[in-house]
């Protein structure tokens, strides 16, 4: 066992002098989340918070799926009267918002909250209280949207809420305000997670994990978090301006008073396009992790993959205008955005080629996680190529806002993100629960999802070319779209059923699944170096990393570092590039204040759809909650 150098001056009890059993006792008493309701509400353990996020996001996935099924039943035939335009318009708006803001972004971030600290070999995420706060804000945002929807107050302006339709004149009532504030809640929470993730990755990596030994998944989460930090403010500006127009009577988006309706679209898509990559990039990290483990070799072209992820993250900010070609953009500008949209195909293509090469150069064994990754290839590559079609200005003008686009982005988002997420669920489930998921049900799930998905979404390409626009609650008989729509509805039901099966598998396996052990897939990254599920302190001794795939490089025993206190929540803080251990720093203890802060902030957001005074009266409670949150406990800060 080699011990890396850690600065050692303080008096507390250190892990150097303890045997394994007493080390476990000490660390457990220091790091464990307290029992009872107060303990649960004060939790700051990244694994506990991540589990809550994952379960909540999964519930929203099911709700969003139910929206979709209802819409598909209405569209299964022409002139069907199952639901009227008022409900239908709420359904597609709430479906889009739920899937984007309450499922896709939170679930990829939640996966990161769970996995990143384990993969970089630390004991908790950075800013654990902020992380806990983010969950409560996310939960209140989700409840806010769905309670509004159940009260017939759901947004009916799409997930994009273009002005003037969403402005005070054309959307009286509170529906558009619900849209605007749902955005505020969810963006605050995802910005908080992004910051915590970035700091965890930059400063809390295990000794020896230099940037070039960082798992690809961690790279993907790092880039994603930066994209969040730069993209989300744009949509918060859009939604805040909108609510100002509606509530305070500013005329920012009102052309009649010198405002600009198109400004909203620019702000929205400056966020909206990177948003797609916020959902997709973490999935590339999952694909890399699964492929490496199942191909049984390190990734082919690690550097190329890292650079691709970074390039995609940067380029994603340069192509938002391709959502707006029909608005009458000047020709030069349009050509520029055609080229920049095509450009992003290059790093994405490179990633695909590297993964295929990894499979070629490895000894792949097929398991459910890899099946979902293969499904990802099949679907995502098709979606990427239709994306190339949409990048072309003239071509886009025929298919924009038709079912062709609906097909395209479901291929990209479900193929590019949900399939990898499903693969990731089968892959990391044993780490979360200590049990394997049923492989047999997994294969059924895969094939049903794969067939259902393609049956539901492939024909939509054709429908779009035949002229069927998006966001219509019905269509006339004589355009001949009826049969193909019926077929699509059938596919959607199969897809929905596959998720029912997945849910059964999740629940069944939690009790009856085969015990997994620490490293059931014989994978190489650090999260598999600890028990399944991991203890509250993650690692009894902080691992020392000497290789990109540490568990493959050190078959006998992983080298560890020693010197941390066990009677206080101490972490190793390392240097950004080299991952040299630098200082020891305390990690925040559990606290109920993030919950109080979230309640104060959430109530202010909610109230602010009724009166601007909410901001004034909401400020003191928020200030009090923050004072409680940061109140010094009289302990010596850093040693």
């Amino acid at each position: 066992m080699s011990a890396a150098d850690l600065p050692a001056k303080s008096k507390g009890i250190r892990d150097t002098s303890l045997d394994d059993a007493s080390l476990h006792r000490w660390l457990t008493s220091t790091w464990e989340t307290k029992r009872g309701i107060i303990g649960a509400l004060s939790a700051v353990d990244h694994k506990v918070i991540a589990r809550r996020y994952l379960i909540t996001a999964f519930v929203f996935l099911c709700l969003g799926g139910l929206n979709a099924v209802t819409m598909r039943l209405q569209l299964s035939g022409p002139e069907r009267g199952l639901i009227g335009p008022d409900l239908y318009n709420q359904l597609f708006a709430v479906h889009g918002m739920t899937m984007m803001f309450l499922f896709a972004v939170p679930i990829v971030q939640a996966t990161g909250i769970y996995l990143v600290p384990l993969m970089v070999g630390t004991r908790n995420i950075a800013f654990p209280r902020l992380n806990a706060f983010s969950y409560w804000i996310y939960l209140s945002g989700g409840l806010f949207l769905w309670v509004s929807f159940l009260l017939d107050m759901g947004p009916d302006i799409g997930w994009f809420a273009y002005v003037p339709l969403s402005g005070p004149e054309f959307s009286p009532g509170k529906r558009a305000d619900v849209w605007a504030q749902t955005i505020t809640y969810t963006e605050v929470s995802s910005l908080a997670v992004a910051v915590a993730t970035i700091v965890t990755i930059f400063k809390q990596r295990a000794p020896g994990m230099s940037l070039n030994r960082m798992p690809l998944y961690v790279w993907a989460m790092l880039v994603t978090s930066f994209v969040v930090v730069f993209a989300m403010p744009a949509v918060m500006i859009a939604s805040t301006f909108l609510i100002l127009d509606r509530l305070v009577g500013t005329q920012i988006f009102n052309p009649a008073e010198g405002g600009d309706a198109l400004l909203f679209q620019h702000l929205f898509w400056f966020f909206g396009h990177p948003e797609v990559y916020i959902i997709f990039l973490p999935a590339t990290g999952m694909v890399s992790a699964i492929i490496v483990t199942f191909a049984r070799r390190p990734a082919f072209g690690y550097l190329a993959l890292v650079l691709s992820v970074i390039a995609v993250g940067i380029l994603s900010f340069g192509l938002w205008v391709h959502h707006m070609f029909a608005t009458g953009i000047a020709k030069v500008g349009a050509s520029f955005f055609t080229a920049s949209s095509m450009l992003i195909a290059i790093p994405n293509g490179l990633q695909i080629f590297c993964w295929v090469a990894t499979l070629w150069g490895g000894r792949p064994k097929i398991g459910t996680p890899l099946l979902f990754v293969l499904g990802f290839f099949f679907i995502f590559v098709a979606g990427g190529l239709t994306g190339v079609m949409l990048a072309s200005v003239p071509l886009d003008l025929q298919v924009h806002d038709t079912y062709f686009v609906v097909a395209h982005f479901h291929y990209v988002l479900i193929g590019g993100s949900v399939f990898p997420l499903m693969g990731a669920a089968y892959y990391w489930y044993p780490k979360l629960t200590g049990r394997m998921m049923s492989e047999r049900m997994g294969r059924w799930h895969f094939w049903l999802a794969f067939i259902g998905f393609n049956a539901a979404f492939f024909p939509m390409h054709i429908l779009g070319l035949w002229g069927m626009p998006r966001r219509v609650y019905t269509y006339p008989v004589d355009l001949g779209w009826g049969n193909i729509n019926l077929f699509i509805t059938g596919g959607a039901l199969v897809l929905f059923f596959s998720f029912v099966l997945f849910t059964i598998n999740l629940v069944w396996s939690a009790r009856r699944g085969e015990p997994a052990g620490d490293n059931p897939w014989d994978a190489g990254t650090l999260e598999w170096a600890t028990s399944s599920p991991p203890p509250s302190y993650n690692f009894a001794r902080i691992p020392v990393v000497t290789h990109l795939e540490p568990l493959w490089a050190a078959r006998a025993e992983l080298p560890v570092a020693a010197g941390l206190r066990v009677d206080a929540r101490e972490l190793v803080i390392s240097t950004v590039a080299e991952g040299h251990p630098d200082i020891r720093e305390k990690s925040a203890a559990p606290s109920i204040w993030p919950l109080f802060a979230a309640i104060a902030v959430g109530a202010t957001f909610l109230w602010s759809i009724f009166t601007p005074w909410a901001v004034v009266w909401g400020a003191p409670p928020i200030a009090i909650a923050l004072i409680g949150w940061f109140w010094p406990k009289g302990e010596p800060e850093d040693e």
Partner: protein
Amino acid sequence: MKATGLHRAAALLPMIPLSGCTGIQSALDPKGPAASELAWLIWFFTGLCSLIWLAVMIVLIWGLSKRRGDRAEPLDIDEAGDRKATRVVTGAVAATVLMMIVLSLLSYFSNRTIAAIGGQNPVTIKLTGHQWWWEVRYESDQPRRTLTTANEIHIPAGEPVRVVLSSTDVIHSFWVPALHGKKDLIPGFDNELTLKADKPGVYRGQCAEFCGAQHAHMALMVVAEPREAFDGWYNAQLSNARQPETDEQRAGHDLFMNRPCIMCHKIQGTKAAANTGPDLTHLAGRQTIAAGTLHMSRGNLAAWIADPQSVKPGARMPTMNLSGDELNAVVAYLEHLK
């Protein structure tokens, strides 16, 4: 209708017999120079993208089915194999770059071709979007020859027609797939496009930007006719509305003028002169009612007037509470407005 390749291919899918597909709103059934250019572009992109997709899948499946030696330690990498793979991947990336350049240039030139469609002194139409109908105004140097109608555009076949797009409420999008790609109607500034149909025919268009409750029922018809027929139509449209002839029509006329109808609609030559709703001067000459919601027929007209909110929930037209006789009279009058 001419069945295109994709129509045929889709027909092979089980459970999708394509009976009744008229293609009057299909981008794959182009009837004008812009749409033809675009259809060609769509097929070219689709072909090329399908080939690439197929190539990636073949390499992937081939890679998976390759026979391999016994399981070794994961870190024992076949260096020579990886060097070969590096060359292949580099080649694939270079091919991607090349393809993106070709496709970018192709769409650039295609865009230019479409922008170049035009001509001298074209017929100019000012198209204004409303929730949820289209106001159509033919511009002319002579004020007496300007013309306002709704939800149906007549154009001379084979001639370019300039369409100026604007909106007075929310954003809409003008899209007649058989003739041209989309262009938005945005409050605050005007957009423009040139519409040209090669042959006479009727093409359906539909609002393509979500515009509120009845976005689904905001369609319009483009009727392309030979020049003489177009001129004839134009001159007929300039004339005042026909006078009621029968007693029933007269009763309908009086009802129209004394009920709220007159608050929103215009019938040229009568005292109905509002412009909140569609111009009804030659209503019965159009093919559809309520922006493509219903076919023009006596029964549909009666259904629409009797209860617009169940035909098009959310539409701006209120229910009038007419008795059976009153309804018949109003329908008789409107049906007379050819």
